[in-house]
């Protein structure tokens, strides 16, 4: 049916006399195994075909699409797009759809075990992870284990003639654990997200979840003030994703919604920070052969030793700046308008051992998890997050667990000083490969 949808869409678009058109079809097969404390609760499974058409009349552009139940649904979707596009005002920034499509070679993005879905094996695995926490710590029990397994095929083509297609698998596994000890409770969740299961170790995932929950016991707030902090990779990832990644996207820069506007070639962060976007990185969640408008993915340095080197572009924003697309067009669904977004972010490692950084904290926090980082403001660079799992360190000694305090600051001030340093160890977390980071003097709102 995938190719039937593509063919029918192309035929109809040609007939309607659009100046340009693009057809994007996705076949998504997904299965989710849901486990709770009592065992595997249910399995949800299904398959869908999604179509998005982007049609252009002069400089009038419309994107229309949705789920396709029968191949005849294509007629309704293209017909509607045709009706709407003629009524729209012109977009003066419009130049053209991409004229040349292509693919990169990317390894590790298809896992045969996921593609062929050995369901019984995965149900057993979820069942194992449900029972495992009690073996690690008798105070611990599982609250949820979810395992998603997906297989996606994509085809993109447009009126300029190229056709690109690829396939990927994806898995996302989470285990949530709670620990109860002498009337106190604490919870923690660990995740694994990747196109394959090569790095997946269920025991390690469960142990880390239990350790996180135990670390959160008997937590209290620290006093309001200024603290030196170590953000563990999960928190640093969250900071980059909420504050820095949006500011690197060309659409935000062009609309004046990025503090990085006009900063190309300038030092914006500590010289210890180098950030790369790489859609071809083997086996990472955001790895794929081409972006969501058919441009080959590639590696590009965004921040080099603290200096801003490039923004992220799709074709539309690249045309505005007279640049080439960086292969970063992103669409959550085929019927949404593309916009620039990260593929995979790799932050280069530093020279510091994590233990050394912690032992050198005089009055600091080591922050393992936060909530609400996404509520920070990428337009102003104002960081805001509530600590959900951390420890207070006094002169190198871990004193107690911390939660419920708010960290705030201007991220461009916080990360600019060369006192900011990174650890030599890194973690892969979905689309991110990131070390831990030491940041001096973050404002903390807590007691008093």
């Amino acid at each position, binding site marked *: 049916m995938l190719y039937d949808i593509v063919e029918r869409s192309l035929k109809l678009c040609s007939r309607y006399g659009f100046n340009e058109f693009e057809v994007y079809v996705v076949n998504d097969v997904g299965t989710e195994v849901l486990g709770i404390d009592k065992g595997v609760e*249910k399995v949800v499974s299904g398959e869908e075909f999604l179509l998005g058409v982007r049609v252009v009349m002069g400089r009038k552009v419309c994107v229309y699409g949705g789920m396709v139940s029968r191949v005849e649904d294509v007629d309704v979707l293209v017909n509607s797009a045709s009706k709407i596009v003629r009524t729209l005002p012109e977009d003066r920034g419009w130049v053209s759809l991409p004229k040349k499509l292509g693919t990169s070679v990317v390894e590790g993005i298809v896992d045969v075990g996921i593609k062929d879905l050995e369901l019984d094996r995965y149900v057993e695995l979820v069942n194992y992870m449900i029972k495992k926490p009690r073996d690690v710590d008798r105070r611990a029990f599982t609250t949820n284990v979810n395992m998603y397994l997906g297989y996606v095929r994509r085809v993109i083509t447009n009126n300029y003639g190229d056709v690109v297609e690829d396939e990927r698998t994806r898995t996302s596994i989470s285990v949530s654990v709670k620990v109860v000890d002498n009337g106190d409770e*604490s919870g923690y969740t660990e995740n694994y997200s990747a196109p394959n299961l090569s790095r997946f170790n269920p025991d390690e995932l469960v142990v880390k979840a239990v350790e996180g929950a135990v670390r959160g016991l008997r937590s209290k707030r620290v006093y309001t003030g200024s603290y030196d902090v170590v953000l563990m990779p999960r928190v640093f990832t969250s900071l980059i994703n909420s504050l820095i990644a949006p500011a690197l996207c060309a659409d935000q820069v062009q609309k*004046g919604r990025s503090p990085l506007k006009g900063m190309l070639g300038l030092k914006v962060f500590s010289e210890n920070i180098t950030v790369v976007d790489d859609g071809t990185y083997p086996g990472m969640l955001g790895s794929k052969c081409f972006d969501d408008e058919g441009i080959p993915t590639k590696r590009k340095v965004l921040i080099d030793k603290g200096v801003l080197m490039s923004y992220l572009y799709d074709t539309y924003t690249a045309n505005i700046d007279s640049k080439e697309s960086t292969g970063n067009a992103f669409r959550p669904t085929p019927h949404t*308008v593309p916009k620039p977004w990260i593929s995979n972010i790799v932050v280069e490692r530093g020279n510091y051992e994590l233990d050394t950084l912690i032992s050198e904290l005089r009055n600091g926090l080591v922050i393992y998890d936060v909530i609400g980082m996404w509520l920070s*403001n990428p337009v102003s660079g104002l960081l805001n997050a*509530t600590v*959900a799992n951390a420890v207070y360190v006094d002169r190198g000694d871990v004193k107690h667990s911390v939660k419920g305090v708010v960290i705030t600051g201007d991220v461009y001030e916080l990360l600019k000083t060369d006192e900011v340093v990174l650890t030599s160890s890194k973690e892969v977390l979905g689309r991110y490969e990131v070390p831990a980071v030491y940041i001096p003097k973050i404002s903390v709102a807590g007691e008093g």
Partner: protein
Amino acid sequence: MITTYEELASLALEEALKKGADHVLVRIQEKLYEVIIYDCGVLKSYSVGRVSGLGIRVLVSGGVGYVYTASLDRGGIVGSVEKALSIARSLSRYAQVGYVSIKPVKDFFKVNVGVDPYDVDPEVKVGLVKEVNTSSMRKDGIKSVVTRLAYEVDRKYITSSDGVSIKSEVTLVGFSHTAVAKYGMISEKVSNSKTFVGGYEFVESHDWLAFADEVDSLAIKASQAKTPTPGTYVAVLDNEAVGLLVHEAFGHASEGDLVITGSSVLRGMVGERVANELVSIVDEGVVDGGYPVPYDDEGVSKGRTVVVKDGILNEFLSSRYVGSRLGRRSTGNARVQDITYDSLVRQTNYYVEPKDLSIDELFEGVSHGIYVVGRGASGGEVDPSIGTYTFSIGPSYIIKNGEPTELVRGVVVSGNILETLMSVDAVAKDLKVVTNVFGGCGKDSQTVKVGFGGPHIRVRKLVVGGL
């Protein structure tokens, strides 16, 4: 040829029962979402998305399989039934799921729509968004503006082997405006939106230039404002801030699926005090200003559930499965984003009940505090297992000597929900509930429309972050 939802659902239901299912639930859905976005004077997108298909859930010997398909033909449906049965049979080894019995209902619910948004000329809709957007872009101090007009039509048919047959059609329309103002090196973003359950007549009856002007003016003022000094404040929260706080920080913890897995801070607390006696909290299916959910996605009637009565935890929200685990009824809170998911326990319209005070009385006697305003809030996040929450609030005001005075920006509030609700010491009488066509409540990757709100309330201790 099978053409109607009822015939398609009936085929799935009969096939599943014939092949050995103990219980069957079928959902058919067609959902249309259109959004027009103008960004800095340019039409950013006119996009339309459509979801349609069938989902079937079967129970066989305690095992549950849910399968969805976009293919609404005999082959696609029969294949889905067989797959669901196969999954359920293999899972019966691992878990014993059961459902509480219900009184089956047959009904058709449709929101009144004066002017169908689908029928309005695209040129008219685009013209309105363009006019508002370009007008804002001309103002001094405004650096970027995003204006959106959206509507959603959600048609569903739900049937089950125990006699449920519910058809529904809900239409929402809404308008949203986000302005970024810059003052020196400070950029500040302010958003506001209005949503109406019904048709395009709502859009036609409002002055959207005036609406946008308010947002723009506030953004300009906020960009010149300071951030609050971090610390603990006496706080008066407005209707939307209360709604956000209660929905996120307490509502999720009261969802029974989190309770049965031990993921809720409220586990084991029914009958215990969880809030000041001034606080009563309700989840109600149909409320003025909210999102109508007369029946949940298991076809169970969603009436009024009193979750907290005078500060005492009264009842958790539940579904048929969660009700069976809790030994209680289903409260009609099983909801799905669309047919590609099976249901979770979700809130419908969750709000704090009003009391007798005027808003002014809440400010009286507050020598130094903060007036927390929900308009433009970016949202919130909570860890329901421990009750920790955080919210990003819109531009708010420092209270001095009983009056809201200085505007502050970048306000983030945080705390533990039980401590916060225990510290409520005044509740006003001005109940307001709202919903939002542009977003919804997220849980386990699913987003559903909800309503939230309450009256103004005052709390004695609220942690506020800032620079």
